[in-house]
């Protein structure tokens, strides 16, 4: 995806929003953040703000959470809809939200973007100095940066988010309009679980050591929970209630481990692996791995994939009297 492609797509995006705006109360999209490597969500309500909307490989945030988290972005005028920009992974979150009736399909105008991957800022920082980045473009499988030290080219495989390297659904599975050419998935669903398979091959003790050392860095800031579009309990989250008290305020590994166990299990069969939890973690803990493993287990046991079929019911919220594989 070159600079020209991006300009063209942004132009298309603005046109489409311009055309649809009379029926929309708000459009949730991305806009330029504090530097070239970051975007920030924007809420467009009038024609003058449309030019703020952008689309590029740095648009990492999953915007669907704003539709359900208090205060949810909902149309006060029932005749109008809410526009939301989604990549392939984000669109699956939308399907999951619609399945569980947190948001209705009719209230949404979905702008879908076939995606070639988003850049993981931490991985870029490991390779370049953090200062004076004047230009950042993606071209021919590389991220090209101009900074104080000159021009630097980085292979995309080295700087894309981990979730992008295992992406099966780069194209939105649900949309009202599609902006950009259809993208080819990088992997098939059978190969999408290589990261957790790597862990599965280790011994039990090695896996425990892995999780104990990774999760010990956890600060229980709950960024992962708040960034997750499906975590709607919010102020009633059992991680923080004192009645019943699941977790103490001790900063010991048992509390941190249990918190992540709770989070993962509450998402079992619902998580669409959008990867936000891992992206937002300030300690860079690979927390999506736990949810990936649960998705893999549920796929193998119950033949279910989250966030793909609008009519489906998440498998742990239902049952079948005749289980074939349990």
């Amino acid at each position: 995806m070159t600079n020209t492609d991006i300009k063209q797509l942004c132009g298309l995006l603005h046109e489409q929003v311009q055309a649809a705006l009379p029926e929309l109360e708000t459009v949730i999209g991305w806009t330029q953040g504090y530097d070239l490597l970051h975007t920030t969500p924007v809420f467009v309500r009038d024609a003058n703000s449309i030019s703020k909307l952008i689309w590029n490989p740095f648009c990492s945030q999953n915007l669907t959470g704003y539709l359900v988290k208090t205060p949810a972005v909902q149309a006060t005028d029932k005749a109008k809809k809410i526009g939301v920009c989604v990549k392939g992974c984000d669109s699956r979150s939308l399907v999951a939200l619609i399945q569980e009736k947190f948001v209705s399909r009719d209230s949404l105008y979905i702008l879908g973007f076939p995606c070639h991957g988003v850049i993981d800022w931490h991985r870029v920082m490991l390779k370049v100095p953090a200062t004076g980045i004047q230009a950042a473009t993606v071209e021919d499988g590389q991220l090209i940066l101009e900074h104080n030290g000159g021009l630097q080219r980085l292979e995309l495989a080295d700087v894309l988010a981990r979730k992008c390297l295992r992406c099966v659904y780069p194209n939105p599975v649900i949309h009202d309009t599609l902006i950009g050419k259809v993208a080819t998935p990088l992997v098939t669903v059978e190969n999408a679980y290589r990261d957790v398979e790597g862990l599965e091959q280790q011994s039990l003790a090695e896996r425990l050591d892995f999780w104990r050392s990774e999760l010990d860095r956890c600060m229980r800031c709950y960024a992962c929970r708040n960034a997750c579009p499906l975590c709607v309990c919010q102020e009633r989250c059992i991680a923080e209630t004192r009645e019943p008290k699941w977790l103490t305020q001790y900063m010991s590994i048992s509390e941190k481990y249990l918190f992540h166990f709770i989070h993962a299990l509450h998402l079992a069969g619902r998580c669409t692996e959008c990867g936000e939890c891992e992206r937002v973690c300030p300690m860079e803990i690979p927390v999506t791995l736990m949810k990936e493993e649960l998705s893999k287990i549920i796929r193998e046991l119950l033949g279910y994939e989250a966030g793909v079929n609008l009519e489906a019911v998440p498998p742990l919220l239902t049952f079948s009297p005749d289980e074939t594989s349990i």
Partner: protein
Amino acid sequence: MTKANSGSVSTANQGIKIVGFLCNWCSYGGADTAGVCRFKQPTDLRIIRIPCTGRMDPLFAAKALIYGADGVLVSGCHPRDCHYSVGNFYARRRLEVLKHFLPFMGIEPRRFHYTWVSASEGQRWQQVVTEFSEQIQQLGLNPGVRNPGPGIELEGLLNRG
């Protein structure tokens, strides 16, 4: 760390703690039947009565194992015989998923077992408890997922030797 585990199956003086979640109607009744018939069983099981295995949140089992319970046993009505019709159908899915997830997180899955025992199956209950207790004996004490926290010893707080 785990105390010496020589493979001995004697339950004397090992002090293992197995937590049992039994549904009120079938399994609790089954355990009661076993008691009435005076079937001998190892005494390591501590029973918690729940109305139905559908009440069973897999996190109950996870939390017990994380905090150092040596084993967790869940028992309910046979599928299609649930007192509330469908509770154990939900449980079957959730507990099977948990069983597969535990080893990924580094917890020994053999410390967790779920089964179906009806109210009249006193002998089967004796068998379930005996076999599971022996299995836990072989696995030894469970250190749980705990390390001595910085400056705060969780050990003392949780009364574990």
